[in-house]
């Protein structure tokens, strides 16, 4: 952690004189210009999120500064970077899960299909109904497997064809074959990997527009991780997926686009910000920013 801060502090921004730290560069083609560009680039596909100059404070503490980012529809976008650089804060700001954190304050705009998520007339419950989230630690309800998946549809009034909906969701989460004979058994009896897939099934049962995954595999063993990654490939296209991960190989394997978050020490106290956002091959192959290059090549350990 401290070595990361140090490194970023030393790297500074002198080395990239024309690139302000918060600028987002989204390349539209594989051979798009590689040098730092000052303008916002249009995406090839429609953007689901258009994040504009977002900064987050928790009380007096700054957690995130000056993030600009467009997240494309029906793609998987991975957020990578060292601990404490605001990835979780950022992803939780996309469906207002931070609202309940005391002292949380967001400046800037998070546009979701053109609507400001933080506008006064926006209901956060409706936001989360469209933008689902799966957490680091599997958190199934202490109910049966079936009731875990059926719970949200029931409460949202989607009672029609509930059995089919539950089956579809469990199939979608690649869990159906393992649990179809014990749907009435407690979800707490499942293994960690199964519980996490159940949480994904629970999230997709209400057919959200976006699925946010906050380090979904970090508490799982490699085999369960592999099944989660496989699952993400199968969900791609149906949902827009944003995933936070510490595992760079995982980002390289599953994501269409990758955003690298780091610490910006320019303004004194280091604060998390978006360093670079591009196609995954570009981020891992030819990153434009030296800090990204250092991170993906493992020079920060």
């Amino acid at each position: 952690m401290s070595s990361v801060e140090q490194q970023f502090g030393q790297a500074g921004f002198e080395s990239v004189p024309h690139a302000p730290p918060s600028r987002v560069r989204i390349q539209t083609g594989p051979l798009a210009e590689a040098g730092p560009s000052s303008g916002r680039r249009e995406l090839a596909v429609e953007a689901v999120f258009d994040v504009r100059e977002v900064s987050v404070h928790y009380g007096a503490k700054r957690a995130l500064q000056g993030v600009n980012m467009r997240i494309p529809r029906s793609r998987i976008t991975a957020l990578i970077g060292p601990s404490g650089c605001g990835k979780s804060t950022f992803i939780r700001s996309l469906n207002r899960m931070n609202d309940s954190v005391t002292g949380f304050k967001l400046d800037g705009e998070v546009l979701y299909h053109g609507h400001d998520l933080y506008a006064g007339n926006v209901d956060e419950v409706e936001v989360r109904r469209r933008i689902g989230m799966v957490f680091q630690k599997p958190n199934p309800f202490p109910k049966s497997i079936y009731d875990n998946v059926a719970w949200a549809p029931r409460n949202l009034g989607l009672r029609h064809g509930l059995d089919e909906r539950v089956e579809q969701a469990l199939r979608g989460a690649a869990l159906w074959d393992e649990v179809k004979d014990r749907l009435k058994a407690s979800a707490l009896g499942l293994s960690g990997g199964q519980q996490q897939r159940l949480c994904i099934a629970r999230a997709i049962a209400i057919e959200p527009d976006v699925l946010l995954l906050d380090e979904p595999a970090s508490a799982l063993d490699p085999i369960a991780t592999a099944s989660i990654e496989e699952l993400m490939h199968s969900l791609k296209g149906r949902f827009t997926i944003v995933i936070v991960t510490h595992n760079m190989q995982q980002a390289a394997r599953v994501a269409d686009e990758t955003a690298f978050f780091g610490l910006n020490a320019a303004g004194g106290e280091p604060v998390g910000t978006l360093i670079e956002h591009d196609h995954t091959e570009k981020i891992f192959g030819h990153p434009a920013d030296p800090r990204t290059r250092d991170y993906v090549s493992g020079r920060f350990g």
Partner: protein
Amino acid sequence: MNEQPAFDPAAPLTPTGNLRRRRAISRVAESGATLAAVLAVGVLAIVVYSVLVHGASALSLDFLFKGEPDGIGPALVGTAEIVAMATVFAVPLGVLVAVYLVEFGGGRMATPIRTTLDVMNGYPSIIVGLFVFALIVEPTESQSGIAASVALAIIMLPIVARGTEEVLRLVPDSMREASDALGVSRWRSVLTVILPSAVGGIATATILAVARAAGETAPLLLITSVFDGSHVSLNPFEAVPNIPVTIYKLSEEANPEGFARAWGAGFVLLAFIMVANIGARVLLNRSRRKMAG
């Protein structure tokens, strides 16, 4: 630096240095604590023993089922009625107070409410009796079972609320996060996820409150004491026979037989309270295990 080693590693492993003294102090402290625990349990055992010895001789089927002067049947039924009504008043209210404190209140109101509940829990029950007497008995000019159950509900409320609050806090925050992230409003989460996983603890708090209310005597003396204990009277709008006041009356009687029956009634009450407490404990353990998965 040429420091002397603190001990010789090759010496036999018997106490060295001040360990002997420390061991002695430790033994004194330990036996003091043990003695205190034995004393506390001993007092309880003596109470239970004397109630058992004195009360058992009065026990018989007639004693349990017949009315005065042979038995305490109507008082048993009456106490059950009053306590049941009090439970109906106190449990929903107490659970709602706890839900407010844990799920919605959070802010500046939580501390004063919690303090109020703790103060309520410590009220002398005679004051609750006076309050309800002035509130209901005086205006209606009659003692009543319903007034008694209001008084008992006031006594039960803080126990239910604080007990429920404790178990609601045991429900992990990840449950709330999970339901929030599914776009379901918090109120529905409370009803369908949070309260069901805390139901064992709520039942425990309720049983403890019932056990406490069943033995409360002071308010009942003011509110439902002028009754005819010879037959069952279920009308809640008049004075209802009940165990605590019956015990009080019997023990005031001049003849020694009344005193024996007071012991018998006390035995019945004590047995109920002990069974209720043990049941509450079993329930709580079961729900803890369920929460742990």
